[in-house]
């Protein structure tokens, strides 16, 4: 579903990704962990081309993202993205935040788009907040609206960029619960996270990145219980103690 071959990304002299090869299957839930500066967010942002790769190949659903003939906007609608800082549209109500994509990208009539929005908002437990504005919601609620905004486009996969890092500790649970439900329904998910419990319990697969490389890649039980590289051992020692 997502195939990445020899992905490089550099900002001028600074090489952030030094050759990433990874293949993510439909329905897989992948957690990407690693120290800050390891390139995990850049890697995620390359998948929907918010960052343009310096070289390499990214194929999503059989479409080569770097090919001229590919309409990147339509590919992006197929891959949802949830940001650390939510990035809801503050001038639009919850309903309008969720329906903007369906209406403008999918060209859905307002009525159909509203029905879709009601359905996905119910799924994230926010039916009661349809007419609220983002500033009236808690961080956890905002992030759930952001997830609903992605879901409204019926994406084939959703990318999560540290979705709980900006939340107060007591609000992390409600967002993780929604993500867990999505995982159980078979949504393909790539989650950059510091939540080791999520990586351990929900992910099918954990990727550990360091210094622009994928250092380890495997099922959570292997990665967490039997880390092979010294760097992963070091990293796990640090996060466990925090």
């Amino acid at each position: 579903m997502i195939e990445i071959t020899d992905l490089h990304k550099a900002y001028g002299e600074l090489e952030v990704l030094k050759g990433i090869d990874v293949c993510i299957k439909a329905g897989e839930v992948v957690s990407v962990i690693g120290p800050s500066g390891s390139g995990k967010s850049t890697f995620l942002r390359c998948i929907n081309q918010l960052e343009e790769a310096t070289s390499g190949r990214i194929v999503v659903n059989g479409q080569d993202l770097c090919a001229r003939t590919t309409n990147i906007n339509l590919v992006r609608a197929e891959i949802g993205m949830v940001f650390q800082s939510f990035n809801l549209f503050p001038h639009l109500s919850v309903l309008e935040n969720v329906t903007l994509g369906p209406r403008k990208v999918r060209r859905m009539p307002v009525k159909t788009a509203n029905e879709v929005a009601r359905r996905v908002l119910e799924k994230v437990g926010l039916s009661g907040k349809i007419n609220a504005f983002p500033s009236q919601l808690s961080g956890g609620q905002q992030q759930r609206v952001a997830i609903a905004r992605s879901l409204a486009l019926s994406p084939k996969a959703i990318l999560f960029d540290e979705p709980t890092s900006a939340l107060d500790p007591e609000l992390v649970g409600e967002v993780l619960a929604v993500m867990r439900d999505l995982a159980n329904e078979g949504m393909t998910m790539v989650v950059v996270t510091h939540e080791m419990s999520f990586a351990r319990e929900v992910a099918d697969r954990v990727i550990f990145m360091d210094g622009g490389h994928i250092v380890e890649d495997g099922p959570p039980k292997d990665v967490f219980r039997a880390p092979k590289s010294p760097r992963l051992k070091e990293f796990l020692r640090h996060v466990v103690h925090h």
Partner: protein
Amino acid sequence: MTNFEFDWSAVFQAIPALVKGAELTVIITFGGLFFGFIIGVTAGWIKLAGNIVFRAIANIYIEAIRGTPFIVQVMFLYFGVPLAMGFRIPPLVAAIIALSLNAGAYIAEIVRGAIQSIDRGQTEAGRSIGLTVPQTMSYVIWPQAFRRMLPALGNQFIISLKDTSILVVIGVGELTRTGQEVIAYNFRAFEVWFAVAVIYFVMTFSVSQIIKYMERR
């Protein structure tokens, strides 16, 4: 002490003429700001997203206008340009062009600043749900940026409205010019300039109240 007495009848007699002048002031201000807004949005947009040549043109325009007095711009346009071009511009048209060009330069900076102040994450969120660049601009960035522009635009509106008084130098019969003409036959300078000032104030105060109301919504 002088034995000056405020002559109300001079004010009342002047009012119909002054109101006519104020109407022209309003017409010039609205005309100038309408075109100035179009120029400003275009120039501000070019400064953000244009290629190097267009950016340079926009920069020269903005700096030239901001670095010269409005009265010089008006006289250059009305008395200077026709000599070079070989045709005269009617005073009212010259007035509106001058005000548009002047306000446009300031509005360009207001527009650029407001668009730049919108968090990058907004663009990314718009693009990540599949919106094109123009769609992201019109549904996500512009509505937020416009809200942030309002106070500065209101301020520019008031400045431009007051700047129309400078148009006396090309003989446009706006409020200040009308005041001069009234005084030329009744010699009641105190009363008439006082009335002119009050009318300007009523106009600028209304604008600032309207902007305040719009900001609250």
